């Protein structure tokens, strides 16, 4: 089942293939994400999820095919250019500016948002001072949205694991994404932390952020997704609502093996 071309698609992955030497990580992948939708990309380990993710965000270049975001082809763009279009990712492992404070992490994340000009900065003109104050306000806003504002002064590396993941999302949010790509955001989190994370995702959705989620946590994926795309061996084997996916024989086979009935 491949995704038909959809005029509402904000992100479209068309005929993408990725070969590493003889290894085919992805063969002919097609799917799209609509504006405001939450789509999850799932699949067993090694199915090609992270590779797909890296291609979409410009960290890897596909062997063939193309990815378009709001009609712009991402082919050949560098990661920071992809970010500039409003497509922002988080990383699978915690990836933060470890040695500096949580607040400054978010300030760095707000990089694209600043209107400060070099000469004005050096002369400390009112315009630049105002821009900086606004930036700081925005940083506080993001920290409050994510719910780690009380830890603003801490060094990023000293945060508890769950909060580090939240800071990772805060960093991504700071880049003002119109679409957010979350790479296994709740892996390694305990139930409480996962609960907080789902709350955050719901808040983001309420703000109209489009989300593409790669995740292993099935209860979470089933609970929050509008649509789920299932990858196996670099191929899309299913694409549909959580209910459809749960009952799809190919998916059940991929996850549980042949001959086992879904409980």
């Amino acid at each position: 089942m491949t995704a038909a071309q959809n005029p509402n698609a904000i992100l479209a992955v068309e005929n993408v293939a990725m070969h590493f030497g003889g290894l085919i990580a992805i063969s002919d992948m097609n799917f799209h994400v609509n504006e405001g939708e939450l789509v999850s990309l799932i699949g067993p380990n090694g199915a090609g999820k992270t590779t797909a993710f890296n291609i979409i965000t410009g960290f890897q270049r596909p062997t063939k095919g193309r990815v378009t975001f709001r009609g712009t082809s991402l082919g050949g763009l560098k990661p920071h250019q992809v970010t500039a279009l409003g497509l922002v990712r988080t990383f699978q492992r915690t990836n933060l500016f470890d040695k500096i404070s949580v607040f400054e992490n978010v300030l760095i994340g707000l990089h694209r948002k600043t209107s400060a000009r070099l000469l004005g900065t050096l002369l400390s003109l009112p315009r630049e001072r105002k821009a900086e104050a606004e930036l700081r306000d925005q940083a506080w806003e993001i920290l409050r949205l994510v719910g780690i504002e009380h830890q603003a002064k801490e060094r990023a590396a000293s945060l508890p694991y769950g909060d580090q993941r939240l800071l990772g999302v805060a960093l991504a949010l700071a880049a003002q994404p119109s679409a957010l790509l979350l790479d296994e955001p709740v892996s390694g989190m305990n139930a409480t932390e996962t609960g907080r994370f789902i709350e955050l995702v719901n808040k983001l959705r309420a703000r109209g952020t489009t989300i593409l989620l790669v995740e292993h946590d099935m209860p979470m994926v089933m609970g929050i997704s509008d649509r789920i795309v299932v990858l196996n061996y670099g191929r899309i084997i299913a694409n549909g609502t959580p209910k459809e996916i749960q009952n799809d024989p190919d998916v059940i086979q991929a996850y549980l093996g042949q001959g086992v009935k879904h409980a």
Partner: protein
Amino acid sequence: MNRFLPLIVLAFFVSVPLWLTDQYYLHTLVVCGIFMLAAMSLNLLLGYTGQLSLGHVAFFGIGAYVSALTSLGFSVSIFGYQITHDPWPPVVGVVLGGAVAGLCGYLIGKLAFRVRGAYFVIVTVSFAEVIRLISLNWIELTNGPLALPGIPPLTLGFEPIGYLTLWDKAANFYVVLTFIVVTYIIIKRLIDSPYGRAMIALRENETLATSVGISVTRYLVLAAVFAGTIAGVSGTLYAHYIQIIDPAIFMFLNTVTMVIMVITGGKGTLAGPVVGGLIFGIAPVILRKYVGPEVQWILYGSLMILIVFVLPEGIVPAIERWFGRASAKNSELALEPGKGARS
């Protein structure tokens, strides 16, 4: 306390020529200040973007030569064309010296930041060596090993007011002090701005920095341009103060001195190169009184090893940690949360 400390230090140095009558000591402070300026510029690269430029003296020397030649004038033939330049005021030389060194920073940045780490070090070292060889062999322009003597001292002023030529050491001291203060403020503003944060972000985590939209080349090159310009200006001050320069200005030892000042003082801190610069600018002079030259260099080296060994981050971060535990603040990286929330 933290905010007033720089002002107290500044007030102290402003007063120095009033009570320090020994011209030799004043001379030491002027040279120390010039190298401190170069170290501050190196800190921008080494400390904030994390790139080690081991050819930093090239910018310093380029500034010195450009300014010297601008104010001395020259006549060279290039491909059969005779190019003659009449002497211009030294102040123009300072501007041109900084500009040319900044341009070199741009070119080196564009070239060298394609490679990072050890390769960057090699590119910068090679660049400095090439420049040294040019200064040594383009005798028509640079006088080669015979040096460029008689460089005029800086002259300040305008036509209607009259001129002040900086012959004496106290005047030079104040000029260098002014440049240090201005540079300090420029670097502080840069570092506290999105520009400086982008540089720090690239040092801390390049992958993540690009994913939040920071262009690697743009900010590394920006740092290189600033570092080149400031180092170039410090070189021009050196040329007009010492009044004679030769290719020995490109000595590797000069780069090493700057690196030592930055690393012992504390790389990536505003005050680091100032503290490191003072220690390693003044230490040789103080030691000279008590011990012979050989012992002096040994002590100088041991002091450096000791500092790096005991305080690997440098002196300034260590002091900040001792004093900062109570107040939980860390100088220029302190963000004073609440400031933004209140406004």
